[in-house]
């Protein structure tokens, strides 16, 4: 993979992830116990032999910057190896904020030039998949393509969320629809592109707009030099709360294809700057764990079933955690019961609280489009009072505490402000 430089688009705010994305960029959202979303793409790049990655950030980059650190966690450190954060900057042309994906790459094109790239790989930082990019770059060279796009078949009802390509029998893309209401094909872009360096340089100068999907790709297809690289394995866009929860649950089903135990995804364990490493998880005498993912530093004295627990989570005696995703250092106190809950970091659920999700026909009162599938989402560092009962589709803002709760019964679709 010499002569291939990667740009990783990590600027998105992931607004549909609601409170999970308030304090961090979408690629920094925790996933699968000990990871952040961006770890999947970074690990792919590492195992593909990519040596230089520019990470384009914009929205709330601190979590992300702390997480990337020196790049050492992905072996991206050395004289010619790097993971470099590329924030927007004012320069000669007085650029402002990134105006789109293509604009972000255009503003940082010097990064690719400096390393003498012949191919430019453009990735996004918020998808769950395992892929070796090297065969894709080979495919790109064999086809003498100007652009190669990794594509996969998606269910027809989801085509409206994707860039959709129509190919000929040489896998050349002959037509393109960006997020069509009624698609002509279900072959969807995964947001993974290989560009010929000179071609990309020219396209960025002559571009009609600032977005790869909306502007650059459709323009290039007219020149008949864009190819589709087929991808058949597990891939998930976790852009919504429902999809985020589902992808976490996919880890627990071996036939889903999300084989976390075999993917060797790397993350940065140093960012928390803990004084000690997380000790092994302790399952107590009264603890019971089935069908779950348990990270280091967890202490389980209660019952955990069909759930994903990040490092340092404590489930006290008599507490039950079912069908839930619980992030770092959250504490579920005695006899509390959680079903279908996403709890952000450092949440405390008081003793005997009941947060019982499951389908309900009333969506969230404030964000009906974000939360309707029966989940309940607890914001970072919030404190749930003891003995409270919370119905599905509820959102508790980050930092909410006992005083934020007016009643002891929260009806379906509630929204609790901090």
């Amino acid at each position, binding site marked *: 993979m010499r002569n291939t430089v990667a740009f990783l688009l990590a600027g998105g705010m992931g607004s549909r992830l609601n409170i999970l994305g308030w304090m961090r960029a979408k690629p920094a959202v925790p996933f*699968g*116990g*000990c990871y952040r979303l961006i770890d999947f793409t970074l690990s792919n790049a590492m195992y593909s032999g990519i040596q230089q990655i520019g990470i384009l950030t914009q929205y709330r980059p601190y979590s992300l910057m702390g997480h990337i650190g020196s790049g050492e*966690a992905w072996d991206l450190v050395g004289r010619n190896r790097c993971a470099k954060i590329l924030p927007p900057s004012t320069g000669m042309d007085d650029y402002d904020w990134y105006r789109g994906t293509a604009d972000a790459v255009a503003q940082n094109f010097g990064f690719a030039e400096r390393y003498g790239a012949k191919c430019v790989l453009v990735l996004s930082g918020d998808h769950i998949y395992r892929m070796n990019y090297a065969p894709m770059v080979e495919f790109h060279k064999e086809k003498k393509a100007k652009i190669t796009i990794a594509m996969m078949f998606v269910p027809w009802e989801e085509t409206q969320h994707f860039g959709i390509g129509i190919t000929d029998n040489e896998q050349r893309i002959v037509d393109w629809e960006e997020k069509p209401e009624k698609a002509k094909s279900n072959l969807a872009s995964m947001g993974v592109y290989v560009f010929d360096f000179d071609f990309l340089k020219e396209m960025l100068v002559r571009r009609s707009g600032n977005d790869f999907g909306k502007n650059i790709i459709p323009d290039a297809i007219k020149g008949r030099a864009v190819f589709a690289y087929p991808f058949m394995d597990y891939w998930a866009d976790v852009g919504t709360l429902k999809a985020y929860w589902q992808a976490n649950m996919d*880890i*627990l089903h071996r036939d889903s294809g999300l084989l*976390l*135990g075999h*993917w*060797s*995804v*790397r*993350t940065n*364990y140093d960012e928390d700057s*803990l*004084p*000690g*490493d997380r*000790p*092994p*998880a*302790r*399952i*107590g*005498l*009264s*603890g*019971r*764990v*089935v*069908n*779950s*993912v*348990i*990270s*280091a*530093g967890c*202490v389980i004295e209660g019952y955990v079933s069909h759930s994903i*627990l990040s*490092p340092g989570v404590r489930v006290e005696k008599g507490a039950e955690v079912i069908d839930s995703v619980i992030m770092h250092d959250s504490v579920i106190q005695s006899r509390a019961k959680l079903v279908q809950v996403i709890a952000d970091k450092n949440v405390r659920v008081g003793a005997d609280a009941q947060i019982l999700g499951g389908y309900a026909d009333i969506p969230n009162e404030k964000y009906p489009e974000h939360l309707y599938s029966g989940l309940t989402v607890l914001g970072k560092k919030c404190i749930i009072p003891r003995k409270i009962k919370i119905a599905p589709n509820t959102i508790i803002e980050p930092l909410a505490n006992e005083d934020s709760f007016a009643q002891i019964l929260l009806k379906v679709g509630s929204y609790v402000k901090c």
Partner: protein
Amino acid sequence: MKTTLALILAGGRVDELSVLTLYRPKSALPFGGLYRVIDIPLSNLMHSGIDRVGILSQYRSDSLINHIGSGAGWDMIGSQRGITMLPPMKGTRSSDWYRGTADAVYQNMEFVLRNKPDYVMVLSGDHIYKMDYQELIQFHERMEADVTAAFVQVSEDGIERFGQALIGDETKEGGHLLSYVEKPRQIISSWASMTIYLFNLDALVYIMDEMMQPPATEHFGRDILPVLLDKKRVFAYKFYGAWAYTRTIDEYYQANMDLLEEKTKLNIEDWMIRTNLDNEHIRDRAPAIFGPNAVCHKALIHHGCEIYGTVKNSILFPGVRIEEGAVVENSILMYNNHVYEGAHVNRVIADVEVIIGANSRVGNNESEGSNKEYPDILKSGITVIGRNTHLPPQMQVGGNCIIYPNKKESDFTKTQVVNGRTIK
């Protein structure tokens, strides 16, 4: 602030640990479901703000060198801090293998002097304890001592293996070292040496220049301390915290299993031990996965474990896989063990990369007597399996058994290993 250089004596192996130290010094022994024993002194040093460290190694250093890596695991990396491996070398004053603690330091005095520390702290790499060495240093300074040694109170059982001291009762923290005897035949005190010595640099130089008579002088405890009492201000520091020793298989087993108790003095959640996450690919491993029929209680489990069977009262290091229908109890399974369907494992210490075949039974709870070949080493019923040994399916292995490393399935000609047998 005065500077302290720490020297960790990590070279030794002991027969008492049998196959567990065939391929590594005892300081590199896996401990507590994640760590190596040497992580304990290294983490103590890090938390005490001592970040210039030499590790004196000689027996099978490669596993230790791998584990230490760059020293970044303990933040001991930078222009003023670091971990230096100090194997025996030619060209020093005596040019030979390290014959003891004092001799090892003697052979590395050039390294010591080059670092120009105010104090030199000598530690051994096989004690389990949490200690703030700054408190010892403050005691040393208050007493205007030249040399301070640390002691811990132990029960009579087994104290004959330690150096023992009579200590002046100046303060609760300790006092003058009144007398010191290395491993006395008759007990003289309940205070046992932790082999932690703090020297003023000039006192250490004095010892090396005036008292060392190689090759006869080997150990600080045996050869130096008893004589030094009359020449220098030597003090004893009393350590009251939790402490354990891992010099025999029983001690090693007990020190580990104690971590599973709810009210343990050595609580690893509060201990803040660091290790090297790059060693054994700990970084690359996904969190533990528990299957739909998993049963697990009273256990330590780390990343990379996959549990589909039953685990009770046991410690599983990263990457251990327990298949459906398998039962593991009262056992310590190190990195990457694989226990196949229907196997039953009880009171077993299995070194790294061990495979236990389907439907086999290994270890038991009721075995009496001792290992026939090594009755002194193994008599509590535990069975020990050396690294990378593959037990075939249907195998029956009793208690007090020792199975040597690297045995292939085809090396087992019989399907039964009775209580107390050793397979080499």
